[in-house]
């Protein structure tokens, strides 16, 4: 009497690899400014601080060098929050000016997942700029244009 197989064939790598996987897909192209506000003495700010650290890593910063990550320290024990101010095109797409996460009861992994769900999807698609031409391609172009000239000149 055998029951059909249920469960995973591969074991998960743990929370660290889950965070790493989410971090790889973070894209801040649609964001103008990120303000991370927290009170260091409040409870449950660990995830916010970790999220701030992860946003400051070079890989994430490279997705949009113009985006400014500003930490805002307050001293009134108010709950932590993260504010994403969007760029114009993203604002039109999402019909909101900014996205706010109340991160008091969210873990770091959840924050990243929500960020990928709401913010990374608003990144404008990349435009192909200045394709580098190879020598053969250049010759073809020039040959195509100059061949007619050469042909007319030859008598």
């Amino acid at each position, binding site marked *: 009497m055998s029951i059909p197989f249920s469960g995973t064939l591969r074991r998960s790598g743990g929370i660290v690899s889950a965070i790493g996987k989410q971090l790889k897909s973070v894209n801040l192209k649609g964001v103008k400014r990120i303000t991370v506000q927290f009170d*260091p003495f409040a409870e449950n700010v660990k995830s916010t601080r970790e999220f701030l650290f992860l946003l*400051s890593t070079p890989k994430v910063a490279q997705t949009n060098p113009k985006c400014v990550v500003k930490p805002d320290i307050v001293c009134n024990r108010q709950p932590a929050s993260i504010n994403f101010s969007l760029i114009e095109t993203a604002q039109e797409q999402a019909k909101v000016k900014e996205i706010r996460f109340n991160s008091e009861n969210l873990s770091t992994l959840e924050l990243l997942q929500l960020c990928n769900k709401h913010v990374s999807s608003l990144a404008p698609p990349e435009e192909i700029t200045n394709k580098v031409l190879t020598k053969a391609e250049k010759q073809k172009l020039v040959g195509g244009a100059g061949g007619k000239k050469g042909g007319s000149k030859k008598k």
Partner: protein
Amino acid sequence: MSKLIQHSLPVTSTRSPLLQFLRFRGKINIQRPKEPHYERARVIAVTQPKYPQPVKSLTCFQTRAERTKAQLENPYNEIVAREVRNWLNHSQLVAIFHLNSITADEIYQLRVQLFKQNMHLKSYGRKIIGQAVAGTPYEAIMPLFHSNHCIVFSPDQKRLSTLLRLTRKVPQMVLIGGIVEQTLLSRNELVAYAQMPSLQVAQAQLVQTLNQAAGQLVQHLQAHQGNLVRVLDVHAQQGQAEETATETPKDAATPTES
């Protein structure tokens, strides 16, 4: 007869050498040993050492870690905790920063700049800091070390403005709290403390405030007399001005006459 011949010493005999070489350059076999003879195996089995084992009833309900004693507290932690306690006790200024992702080169340059101002940049693990401050009044700073951090110690609390100036150039360091003269301060309080004037200036301001009460009383008493004197002065000056005005036309007239 052969036994009689054997009596001679092996060294003296020319036929058999003292050393009989059994092996020449070949590799010895230790991976696939021959099965021992039964008698030999029996002797080996009997002479296997038996080590004393803990009584099963004691270890039955212990976890694997407890049974194998894998986690022993490293005594070095205690030494580092003592160092942290030392730094905390002998520093008038302790500033705690949240540290974002930063290259070692940048933080080294900041460390050098701070060192030149007699400030010391340090970083310890949360467990060790917990061990260091447990039971001391410094226990209140524990919530600040949940994430990546660094600490700046200085024996001189007047350096706070210099510290803020230097760390303003490093955006990855975010000030979150500090201890000044055994008093825990939040970030805004630290910034306000840095902008406060020196002790002498504060004392001068206090003296000024204290004198203000008496000074105001004197001012009120002298007010009316002073006013009168001023008005008379102005009046006298106006009278003098008129006299000089009338004299000068007469003087101007006389030279033309002569």
